[in-house]
């Protein structure tokens, strides 16, 4: 059996993962994962047209209560998805905004967020 093997991959990432949070102007508005996927398609369609709407996006996780989601997109469509989500301002006649909190080519990295962890240190 070979003793040691090392492979370094430095290319453009095959997949990128985004952690996003959806906010509506009316804080009581709630949507589910299917509606959220439709919202992503709508955002892509709005900015990049039909070809944009066909970009494959996986919603790996959607939390109904906080409306936080983890998205999986291919590396080459990251910029398109990111920009489309940022520029989305309205869904189903209601004003909304999407905040992209974390972006990473490693899904594991989205499990923790050291930037926001210490914001509410007990005093």
């Amino acid at each position, binding site marked *: 059996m070979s003793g040691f093997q090392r492979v370094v991959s430095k290319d453009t990432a095959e997949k990128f993962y985004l952690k996003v949070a959806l906010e509506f102007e009316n804080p009581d508005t709630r949507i589910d994962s299917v509606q959220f996927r439709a919202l992503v398609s709508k955002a892509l369609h709005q900015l990049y047209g039909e070809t944009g709407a066909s970009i494959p996006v996986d919603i*790996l*996780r959607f939390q109904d209560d906080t409306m936080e989601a983890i998205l999986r997109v291919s590396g080459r469509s990251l910029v398109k998805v990111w920009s489309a989500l940022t520029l989305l301002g309205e869904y189903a006649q209601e004003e909304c905004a999407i905040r992209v909190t974390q972006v990473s080519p490693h899904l*594991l990295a989205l499990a923790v967020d050291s930037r926001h962890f210490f914001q509410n240190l007990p005093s």
Partner: protein
Amino acid sequence: MVEFLSPKSKTIFESSAFIHKNSRHTSCVSDHYFNHAVEVFLPCCDSLPDAVQVSSPQRQEYYAVKRLPLAELTNAEFVSRFVKAGRLYVLSIGQHIDTHNVAAILPTGRLILSVNKDTYQELGLEGKPSQFEKPRKVTKYSVEVNLVAESFCKGKKNYERVQWCFKDRLDLTFDFLLAWQPNDPSQSLDDLGSFWSSKYECLRVEQRQHSFQMRNQSIPVIDSSLLLHRQHKSNQDASRMNGSSQGCEETQVRSCDAAEVYEWLGAVACQCDCSGASDSFVNTYRCPEPSQQVSSSVCHRWTGLITSERILHMLDALRSKVECSRMPWAALTVHGFTDSPVSWGSREHGFSKYGNNLYTFVIFPKEQRYWLIMGIGDHDVCP
């Protein structure tokens, strides 16, 4: 449609054995100083084994000190009582490395400052431009002060200059996290807290825990000798089209690729849905094949500031546990701080689009083999 350049990603895959004479697992753990979270994933387990629980970072506490001037950390008394008397981990928080100033003291006794151009010019200490900046457009500088150098003591020029810069020229103040591993066992973290408690707000903080259990879950089947065979696979696919190969079938069935396992471990850690159908509208992601069904697995995470000694201790406990149990494999993941000025050793770390610096050990029972997967960002040097 227009095409945009996507950010680069660096991932390092290593396959080795703990008993191999050149195995780098110890240096990988001990050189990664600022650990924010440790996570273990144990398949075929109902709860966290006692041996792992005992070695966990749970009992290792740390301090958070608010609005502490840097001059206090470079003070001769502090240096001799704490920096020289053990392994001290100090990291500023609440400041973003891509836009603000960040400070850290490594356990080797070096103070590292990553500052923006204005601060650098006002400060008056010698440093060098950040290696990730373009030559004529430098906006970040890094300054290094060796606190354990012989010339760094009261009365010496170097010391007086540093004190003067931090006190009189620029009063740099940060919120800090501090962890300390004293050389003398009679000393404890309390000494560190009481040192400033009268002057500054010091909080003793416990590591935060998060745990969840999964039932009837599919986990990937892994063969430790096949680290990455995807490139390999596509070559073989091509040869099969020519009607020549048969061996590839076997390779495909036997094991999952390290990159697939890494993604799957991420999906578990983020509690993602891994049961997507290939024609699903919402999610098409599913556990990589081949997979096996296990009745129960545990994932446990500690978050805070964790010393590398503690992680090494935990890795050893996990290794012996994997060896003597019926787990097919186990995983240990360590997340570094996004805004730490160094990643491994004194290698500079930056944020770019994401400040990843994390590593994962996938530990196998057979021949003490392991996979080490390190994920770093664009503004990082390969360890």
